[in-house]
C-alpha cells in the first residue's frame, strides 16, 4: 500500500548512467569539503551563476570605459589600445580588469555548466535554462574571441587568419561566411569595425538570453553573497595591477609570428589547429555544441521509471478546493503557477468566495512538489504521489 517506501532505487543500468552517478557523487563530495571551509551560505559553488553574472557586469562597465577610447581601424586599433594602456589615467588597470574578468566569467560559466549537468539540474522542464545557457556559452566564447581580435596585434592577426581558414573550410557556405566575417575579400579597416560590432553586439545579446535563462526561475540567485562580490572585484583588480594585460607586437601586413601566448580559456579551438585540419576543428566544435544542446533530451542518468518519488508527475490543482490564496504562486521556484480570475466559485467552504484560481503551467513544472507543501487547502497534488499515500505511510508509522 505504501508508495515507494523503503524501496531501494535500483542502480542505473547504462554505463553512462553509472558514470554520471559517480560524477554526481563526486560533485556533492566536493561540496562537503568546501562546506568545511566556508559555511554553506558562502560556498562559491552554490553561486556559480551569480558569479558569472557578476563578472559579466564588470565586463560591461569596464568595456564601456574602453569603448570611449577604442578606434576600429587597422592603423588606429593597436595604437588606441596602447594609448588606453599607457596614456589614459588608470586605462591600463581597466584594460586588465576587462581581461581578467573575462577569464573569471568563462571559468564561472563552465563551473556553472558542469555543476548543473552533474547534479541533474536540467531535468524535465529545466531544459529551457539549459538551452539558453548553451547559447550564452557560445555567444560568450565568441565575444571573448573577437575581444582578442580588437587589440590588433600579431596574435589578433594570426587568430583572424586562423578563424577565416576555419570558416573557409566549411563546404558551400564557408567562403560566404568568411567574407561576412572580415567584411570583404581580405582584411581591411572594415574588418575591425565588424570585429567591434561582433564584440559588442553579441555581448548585448547575452542579456536577452539571460532574460530567457531566468524566465522560469523565481528569485534567481543573480548575485553572489557580498563577500564574494568584494573578493571577485578585488581579485580582478589585483591581477590587473600585478600582471598588466599587454599587447604583442603590432600587426604587420606580412608578419607571421611563430608562436604567441595562448589563452587557455577562449582560444582552445585555435590551439587545436596545431594538430587538426581547420575543417576537423569546425566539425569537432559543431559536434560538441550539438551534444551540449542534446544533453537534456538524451542524457538522462536514470530512466524516469527508476526515479521513484522524484518523478511524481506534473502538479495538478484540485479546482474545487483552491481558494486563490496565491501561496503556491509565491513559492513555486520555477514560475510554473499562474493565478487566473476564477471562472466559478470553488466547492469547499473556504473556496466559495475566491476571486483567483491557481493554474499549473505544465510545460514549466519540474514535479518538485513544493507547491503541495505551500498549499494549506489541499488543493494541489502530485499525481503519482498523492496526499493519501503520504497519510497512509504516516498511519503505518504511528500504528507500529
Amino acid at each position, binding site marked *: 500500500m505504501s508508495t515507494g517506501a523503503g524501496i531501494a532505487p535500483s542502480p542505473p543500468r547504462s554505463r553512462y548512467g553509472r558514470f554520471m552517478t559517480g560524477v554526481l557523487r563526486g560533485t556533492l563530495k566536493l561540496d562537503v569539503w568546501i562546506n568545511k571551509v566556508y559555511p554553506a551560505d558562502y560556498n562559491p559553488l552554490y553561486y556559480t551563476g551569480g558569479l558569472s553574472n557578476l563578472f559579466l557586469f564588470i565586463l560591461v562597465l569596464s568595456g564601456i570605459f574602453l569603448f570611449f577610447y577604442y578606434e576600429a581601424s587597422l592603423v588606429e586599433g593597436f595604437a588606441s589600445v596602447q594609448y588606453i594602456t599607457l596614456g589614459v589615467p588608470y586605462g591600463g588597470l581597466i584594460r586588465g580588469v576587462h581581461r581578467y574578468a573575462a577569464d573569471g566569467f568563462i571559468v564561472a560559466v563552465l563551473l556553472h555548466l558542469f555543476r548543473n549537468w552533474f547534479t541533474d539540474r536540467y531535468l524535465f522542464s529545466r531544459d529551457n535554462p539549459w538551452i539558453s545557457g548553451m547559447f550564452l556559452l557560445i555567444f560568450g566564447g565568441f565575444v571573448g574571441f573577437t575581444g582578442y581580435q580588437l587589440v590588433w596585434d600579431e596574435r589578433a592577426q594570426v587568430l583572424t587568419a586562423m578563424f577565416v581558414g576555419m570558416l573557409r573550410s566549411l563546404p558551400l557556405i564557408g567562403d560566404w561566411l568568411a567574407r561576412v566575417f572580415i567584411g570583404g575579400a581580405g582584411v581591411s579597416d572594415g574588418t575591425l569595425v565588424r570585429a567591434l560590432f561582433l564584440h559588442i553586439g553579441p555581448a548585448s545579446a547575452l542579456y536577452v538570453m539571460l532574460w530567457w535563462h531566468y524566465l522560469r526561475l523565481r528569485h534567481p540567485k543573480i548575485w553572489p553573497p557580498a563577500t564574494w562580490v568584494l573578493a571577485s572585484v578585488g581579485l580582478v583588480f589585483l591581477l590587473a595591477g600585478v600582471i598588466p594585460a599587454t599587447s604583442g607586437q603590432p600587426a604587420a601586413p606580412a608578419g607571421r609570428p611563430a608562436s604567441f601566448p595562448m589563452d587557455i580559456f577562449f582560444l582552445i579551438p585555435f590551439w587545436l589547429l596545431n594538430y587538426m585540419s581547420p575543417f576537423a576543428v569546425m566539425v569537432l566544435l559543431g559536434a560538441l555544441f550539438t551534444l551540449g544542446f542534446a544533453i537534456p533530451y538524451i542524457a538522462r542518468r536514470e530512466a524516469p521509471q527508476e526515479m521513484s518519488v522524484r518523478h511524481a508527475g506534473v502538479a495538478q490543482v484540485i479546482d474545487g478546493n483552491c481558494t486563490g490564496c496565491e501561496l503556491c504562486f509565491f513559492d513555486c521556484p520555477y514560475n510554473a503557477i499562474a493565478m487566473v480570475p476564477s471562472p466559478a466559485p470553488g466547492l469547499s467552504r473556504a473556496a466559495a468566495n475566491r476571486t483567483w484560481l491557481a493554474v499549473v503551467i505544465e510545460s514549466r513544472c519540474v514535479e518538485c512538489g513544493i507547491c503541495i507543501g505551500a498549499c*494549506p487547502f*489541499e488543493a494541489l497534488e502530485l499525481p503519482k504521489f498523492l496526499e493519501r499515500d503520504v497519510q497512509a505511510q504516516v498511519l503505518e508509522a504511528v500504528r507500529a
Partner: protein
Amino acid sequence: MSNGPKVVGFVCDWSVDLVPLMEGGRLREMPSVRIIRVPCSGFVRPSWLEDALGRGADGVFVTGCPYGDCLNREGNYLMRDRVDQLQRRLQRRRVDPARLGMLAYGLHDGPAFLAAVRAFVEGIRALPAAAPPRSAPAAPAPAAAERETP
C-alpha cells in the same frame, strides 16, 4: 516492536543517501524512526507534520539538502520557514517544539544525518510524555481552515 519514541521522518530523495541506512522503511540503527521519502523537502505540507504528531507520533522531522544546494533551488529554505512557523504554532498549543525538526544533509552526510536524528530522538525521549493521540485517526484530515482555529 521497538522501545524508542515513534518518530516519522520526511526525507528528500535527493538529500541523504538512505539506501545504506534503511531497512523496511525504517532506519536500521533506530527502528523506531520511520522514513517517508519525498521528492523534495518542500513537498511536505506542514499539516501532515501536525497530523503525525496528533495521531501519536512522538516526533517528526524533515530532511532536505544543505542550505543553498536544494535541487529545486528553494525547497529547503521554504521548508525551514514552514517548520519555524509550525513550531511557533505548536508552542501556542503547548506542544513542545522540540518534537518537530528540520535537518539539512547532503548525499554523503549519512553519518552526520544519523547523529542528528539520534540527537533528535534523544531530545524527545527526555521530554515529558505527550498528550494521548487523537481518537479515530482513520478519518480524513479536516480542512485546514478549520484546523487553524485553536
